[in-house]
């Protein structure tokens, strides 16, 4: 087996070996075609993703399922425009997989700039996938990978290769290994759920048929803080994502709400009213108060950390209605940054630190807004299609997920690209979905 793998490496040259089973070890490919996706004139890149080629006659239906899943990931990224496979000229099961066999002029005629060509074999429960990305214009292979994994985990491998494609072409990984936590509303019951980045595979984290709110990922993605009324008042709990165990974090008199993990730390900013007023405190991983961060006569809620953990965006109503403020923790200075609506809440600091998303009432509806941390360059991202609330950033900072009532009265989770395109609905469950929180990248490297 090993000698066969070595042979493959020698033979394909570019192909690097990534063994996902039994353990995770990989080598990052070096050669990149970095495309600048930040230019305003950027247009999605046409890419062809034919059905994968099966080299053994087992699980042949995966050929199409994997191809569609990869095309869906690439479409979701907002960078690619997958071409309709019905227009392809060659039968995907007879066409070749290496650059010598690819008919580049044909693909160029179809308008493709890139081509993904994958082939797989199944032996027992093991899936082996050879995956290649070709530059159709430059007629060369950009990326080649071999994955070996348990066949039932095929979707994870497809996400992984989609991530590699983004890395190779943009210099930044995708978000295909991330998850989104949200609140699932069913009548009076609100439970915390976690789904994949695209809304698939929703799984319940709480199952007490009570009132659970405000899920918040720890920066290592291992824990979810949330608010529950299971002991009467609103208290903050922490769920361990891997083993499902739950513990009380803050159960002080009054309300204990709005958990936000400090980046790279086990500490959290939370709102507690134990001192008589809803103020923002820094608490330890076991809930002890370290210090009071924001104190005033007003309501102070919904903290969101800057990525380096030195500033805090939050909501205060000290001018009479709720607005977004920024606290500089080193100087103690507070500054209001939202002026565009009478009611601005739910700040979310972008992972690169360059934007703060929030929602504001504009034109009678809640809309998603973006503003620079200095209060400049305000942008309205939604335009009165129902109420749009609770923005949360993808870890690459290119997308914002939020809840929206634009299709019927119950909210669902939606996502948009920060360039204003690519709006799509993620959740299709019954009931409603609200208060999304996007996880960090989970497969760490």
């Amino acid at each position, binding site marked *: 087996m090993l000698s066969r793998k070595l042979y493959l490496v020698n033979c394909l040259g570019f192909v690097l070996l990534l063994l*996902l*089973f*039994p*353990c*995770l070890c990989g080598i990052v490919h070096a050669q990149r075609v970095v495309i600048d996706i930040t230019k305003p004139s950027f247009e999605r890149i046409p890419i062809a993703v034919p059905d994968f080629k099966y080299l053994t006659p087992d699980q042949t239906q995966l050929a199409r399922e994997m191809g569609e899943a990869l095309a869906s990931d690439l479409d979701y990224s907002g960078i690619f425009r997958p071409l309709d496979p019905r227009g392809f000229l060659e039968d995907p099961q007879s066409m070749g997989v290496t650059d010598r066999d690819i008919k580049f002029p044909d693909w160029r005629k179809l308008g493709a700039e890139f081509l993904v060509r994958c082939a797989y074999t199944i032996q027992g429960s093991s899936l082996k996938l050879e995956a290649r990305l070709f530059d159709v214009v430059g007629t060369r292979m950009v990326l080649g990978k071999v994955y070996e*994994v*348990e066949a*039932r*985990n095929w979707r*994870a491998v497809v996400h992984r290769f989609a991530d590699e494609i983004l890395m190779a072409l943009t210099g930044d990984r995708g978000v295909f290994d991330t998850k989104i936590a949200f609140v699932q509303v*069913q*009548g*009076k*019951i*609100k439970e915390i759920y976690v789904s994949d980045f695209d809304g698939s*595979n*929703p*799984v*319940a984290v709480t*199952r007490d*048929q*009570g*009132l659970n*709110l*405000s899920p918040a990922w720890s920066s*290592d*993605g*291992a824990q979810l803080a949330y*608010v529950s*009324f299971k002991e*009467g*008042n*609103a208290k903050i709990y922490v769920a361990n994502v*891997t083993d*499902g165990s739950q513990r009380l974090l803050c159960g002080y008199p*009054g*309300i204990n*709400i*709005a958990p936000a993990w400090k980046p790279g730390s086990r500490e959290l900013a939370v*709102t507690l*009213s134990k001192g008589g007023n*809803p103020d923002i405190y820094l608490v330890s991983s076991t809930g002890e108060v370290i210090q009071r961060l924001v104190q005033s006569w007003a*309501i*102070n*809620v*919904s903290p969101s950390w800057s990525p380096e953990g030195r500033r805090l965006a939050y*909501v205060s*109503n000290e001018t009479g*209605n*709720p607005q977004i403020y920024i606290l500089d923790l080193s100087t103690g200075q507070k500054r209001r940054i939202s002026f565009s609506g009478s*009611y601005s*809440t*739910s700040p979310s600091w972008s992972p690169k630190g360059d934007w703060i998303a929030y*929602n504001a009432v504009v034109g009678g509806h809640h809309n998603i807004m973006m503003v620079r941390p200095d209060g400049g360059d305000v942008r309205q991202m939604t335009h009165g299609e129902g109420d749009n*609330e*609770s923005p949360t950033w993808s870890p690459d900072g290119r997308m914002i997920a939020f809840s929206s009532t634009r299709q019927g*009265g119950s909210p669902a989770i939606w996502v948009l690209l920060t360039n204003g395109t690519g709006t799509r609905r993620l959740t299709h469950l019954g009931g409603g979905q*609200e208060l999304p929180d996007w996880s960090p990248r*989970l497969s*760490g490297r």
Partner: protein
Amino acid sequence: MKLSWRELGRVLLILVCVTSTFACAKKNIPSQPGFGPGGGGESGSGMGSRGGPGGLDEARWRELGINSEPEKREFLQKAEKFENTDVYFDYDSYVLSEPAKKILDDKIQFLKRYPAVKVSIEGHCDERGTNEYNLALGERRANSALQYLANSGVNQQKLGVVSYGEERPIASGHDEASMAKNRRDHFTLNY
């Protein structure tokens, strides 16, 4: 988090199993889950948590200072009115209006006559705005009533506060009339 795919798969499988169990279990949920300290009932459900006049033993009646059947009937009648009369607020406000103060004055009379009774004050908001801000606003509304009662000489030890924010609306409509009904303090008695 460092996890092999195999481990991740196993965890997901377990979670999927648990979720499907949950999906089945969901069909049998009670329609009125109980919330709040001291066994306080669901908002607006009146005295449902104590199951009616037969619920108290004689010792407890004596602690409440009630010794005859007519006195019991009078107490229960007033208690029901107490719980069924909410105090309402303007949008994004926790200031007590004049009508709100009048309602609280009636409640003060009751609490002075029956000082052993405990009260849970629930603060509620309409659906507009965000859940977290509304949890804080609901607490402010409940505290406004608590402060008014305490300032009028009601024993603060007998008063408790809980905020449900926008999570427990009493009216389900999205019009202003429904939302006005939801911006309220609701009171449950414990005796």
